[in-house]
């Protein structure tokens, strides 16, 4: 049984392959750029919010929709509000 040699930190770092910089992560949040889009984030605007939920009614992840953290929180809050008054579904069972 050979003993595993623990490499030094510098050697470990050299062995690591450099990650490809993904161009998709540089996409800008559509709400950060436009005031008009920000005004669309409203629980009453169910037609707009439908673009941010899946077929099953689940809220899309920000890595999928490309929204930044701040606007994802606002968007999700409005979607949850719309769900309580039946403008959006909780689940696709009722589609």
């Amino acid at each position, binding site marked *: 049984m050979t003993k595993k040699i623990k490499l030094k930190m510098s050697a470990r770092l050299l062995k690591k392959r450099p990650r490809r910089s993904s161009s998709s992560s540089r996409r800008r949040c559509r709400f950060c750029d436009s005031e008009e889009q920000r005004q*669309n984030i*409203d*629980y*009453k*605007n*169910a*037609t*707009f919010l439908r673009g941010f939920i*899946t*077929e*099953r009614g*689940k809220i899309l992840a920000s890595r999928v929709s490309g929204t930044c953290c701040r606007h994802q929180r606002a968007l999700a809050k409005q979607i949850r*509000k719309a*769900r*309580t*008054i*039946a*403008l*959006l*579904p*909780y689940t696709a*069972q*009722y*589609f």
Partner: protein
Amino acid sequence: MHRYEVLMLSVPEITSDETSNLEKGFDKIVRDAKGTLVSFERWGKYRLAFPIRKNDYGIYFLARLEVDDANSLKLLDELKSFFAIKVNDLVVRNMVSKLDMNASLVYQRPRSLEEAATARDVNTFLKENKMEGLLPGSESAAPKAAAPTGEAEEEVEVAVEELDTDKNGEDNEGDE
């Protein structure tokens, strides 16, 4: 000054008398709290995303009001009891939100069933969506445009954890 809006969902069988009573009751509460009712709109009949009290349809009302800072808490308490006790049979859901005084009163809302039913013919749809090039006058073969709201999507969605039992061999595309 605070500005609030209340979105109410009522049963679809509400009569016009009951609607006016609702509006009057609402107005009375707002006046008692020395506020002003900015608007009371009837959105119309909508198909709900899920059944509520065994109803698949409902009628939405949106009311906007303004009130002083001193009376706002009192007004909100009164509204709470109004919805809980007085109009409990009629109004099944309500959502009170605070609005920014400086923000505009313009908002977007989904199309109601009454609005959707009126002449969704091809020409108005094309004009609305700026596709005049497809109108029958301009080109010979104009393909019929599909209305976006009425379509039921036929995608079969399967998540990795749940194995679907359909045996038709169809390619299951998932959004997730």
